């Protein structure tokens, strides 16, 4: 049995099994996305979460799903899947189909599912960060005890609007957790080349905000830190700034086909030693929570599921051409025609 049950938060063996399944599914799902991209089914900009699974898993498994709000940038598939968005609808969106979460109008970068608390899915680096604070403003305005998980990248953490937002979030006591997914790169620019002080965790300090750096490669530790911070924010109705250390094994996006431009193969190999899925796998076996065979079975199942998701998504038709004018407004269309 897990020795974690005495600790806070109580994480059961079943929870850990669930995390493994979810993380494996995300990774297999993302691999299918890459396959779809190479096959010409998905286009545009598409960014996978491979290597970062423990981060979103730890946070999203610590909130009240469907009640608390979650918002992130364009690297958004995992967040939606963890919140319970239908995987086929996510995949259908990624390949631009009618059955997608936005009917094929958003694409990979713009997945939304407000019913499950997910507010996207945004493509302007740093631009969604004030929106997340706005969600927190609404919660505060209505005297609800929701918290907001406001994810952004290490590159986004340089944008001016982020700091305008930190100032206001602190000034107005907004229950908003700013989570920097520090995967060490902003596209092809290494952290040290884009941040004057690479210790990004400090950047909430001038705004009178609690700040810290945590590890996002160990899902158990991530889950504990996330729960502690979320509980604090819910209780104290104040924002929090967290730098989470992680790494993306994949390229920046599907269009990044030469990672050697910004990092070496050796570096990647070292990073693979921190693989969050391998780490959890090892933990489960060492603590006799799951056998090697049981894990292999889950691996096979999630692989088959991800494959089936892509197949099912492909059955969805392309949007009808007359839908192009739909939903620009709630109640009208703009002038039509070229």
């Amino acid at each position, binding site marked *: 049995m897990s020795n974690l049950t005495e600790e806070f938060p109580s994480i059961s063996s079943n929870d850990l099994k669930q995390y493994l399944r979810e993380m494996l599914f995300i990774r297999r799902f993302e691999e299918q996305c890459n396959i779809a991209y190479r096959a010409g089914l998905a286009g545009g900009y598409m960014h996978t979460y491979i290597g970062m699974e423990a981060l979103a898993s730890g946070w999203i498994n610590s909130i009240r799903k469907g009640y608390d709000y979650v918002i992130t940038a364009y690297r958004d598939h995992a967040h939606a899947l963890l919140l319970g968005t239908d995987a086929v609808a996510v995949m259908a969106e990624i390949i631009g189909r009618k059955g997608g979460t936005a009917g094929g109008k958003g694409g990979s970068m713009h997945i939304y599912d407000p019913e499950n608390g997910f507010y996207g899915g945004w493509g302007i680096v740093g631009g969604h960060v*004030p929106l997340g604070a706005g969600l927190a403003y*609404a919660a505060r305005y209505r005297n609800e005890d929701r918290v907001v998980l406001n994810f952004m990248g290490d590159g986004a953490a340089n944008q001016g609007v982020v700091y305008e937002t930190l100032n206001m979030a602190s000034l107005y006591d907004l229950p908003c957790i700013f989570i920097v997914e520090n995967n060490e790169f902003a596209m092809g620019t290494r952290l040290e080349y884009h941040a004057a002080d690479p210790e990004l965790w400090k950047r909430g300090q001038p705004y009178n905000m609690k700040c810290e750096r945590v590890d996002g490669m160990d899902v158990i530790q991530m889950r504990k830190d996330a729960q502690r911070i979320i509980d604090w924010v819910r209780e104290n109705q104040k924002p929090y700034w967290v730098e989470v250390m992680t790494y993306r094994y994949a390229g920046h996006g599907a269009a990044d086909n030469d990672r050697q431009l910004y990092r070496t193969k050796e570096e990647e190999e070292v990073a693979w030693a921190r693989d969050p899925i391998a780490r959890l796998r090892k933990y489960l076996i060492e603590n006799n929570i799951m056998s090697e065979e049981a894990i292999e079975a889950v691996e096979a199942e999630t692989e088959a599921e991800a494959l089936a998701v892509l197949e099912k998504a492909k059955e969805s038709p392309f949007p009808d051409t007359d839908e192009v004018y739909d939903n620009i407004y709630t109640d009208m269309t703009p002038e039509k025609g070229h």
Partner: protein
Amino acid sequence: MPNMIELSYREALQKGIVEEMERDQNVFLMGEDIGRYQGTFKVTRGLVEKFGQRDNRYNLRILDTPITEAGFAGIATGAAMAGLRPIVEFMTMSFSILALDQIINHTAKIHYMTNGVVKCPIVFRGPGGAAKQLSAQHSHSMEGWYAHVPGLKVLAPSTPADVYGMMKSAVRDDNPVILYENPGLYAIKGMVPEDDAAFTVPIGKAAILREGKDISLVGYSRMTQINLEVAELLAKDGIDAEVVDVRSLLPLDTETIYASVKKTHRAVVVYEDWRSGGFGAEIAARIGEDCFDDLDAPVLRVGGLNVPMPYARNLELQCIPDADDVLAAVRKAF
């Protein structure tokens, strides 16, 4: 008939805001210096006492923001996504340029990118165009920039009754709305319904403020006031001008505009924004495309000079279209 009361444009605007805030708890105001300082153009005078407390560090219903236009436009947008109905004041529309990324890349795109799943009911309002000697960085007419963007609605009322009724319609609309107020209008007076909280002016309907049969003077916001003045001057010369107040740029009521042009066979479009590429050019192009056979003269435009706004009063006045400029265009049309 409701009781009517004479109010300034500024007072009528505030009346619309207050009625909507009283009607719906989800409506709140945010902007720079709108609370304790009462607003730069005093549109929000007295509201901090009404909807908050002067001594509070902040008031959620009338929120004084730091000078961070992008940040607060974004926070308001996020709040709207979660169901609130913010009214955001820009101290001047020139400063909304700092928030263009939020408004264009985010606010205006939400409903489409979510295929209608997330609504964004929000109003951005503030003075745009020249006030008096505020020079090059404080005098932008931004309405044409916004009216270029699918996903936004853009209103530019010219009378107290219209700003009152359109403010209310804007708040009730489930889409992002830009309300453009020319600072030269704040002090003008007009009759407004006094105690008819249900009164609104529809979005997307132009108004004929003066009927005439010889030429259509098409404009919006303060230029409509100029057009009314010009129409009186022309009447003395025996020219019967029709004044079309566009009021709503997006959506644009081409039906009313075209009906006027088909009657008068001549049109001058007047706008304060830079002549080149300003919204009046769009109106003129549409009249030219769709009313060609009805026209007895080319569609003419009167716009602001294509220069950054200078400071010296004589140069500033030279830049802004006035009655003489419109009269000169009318003469060309005959």
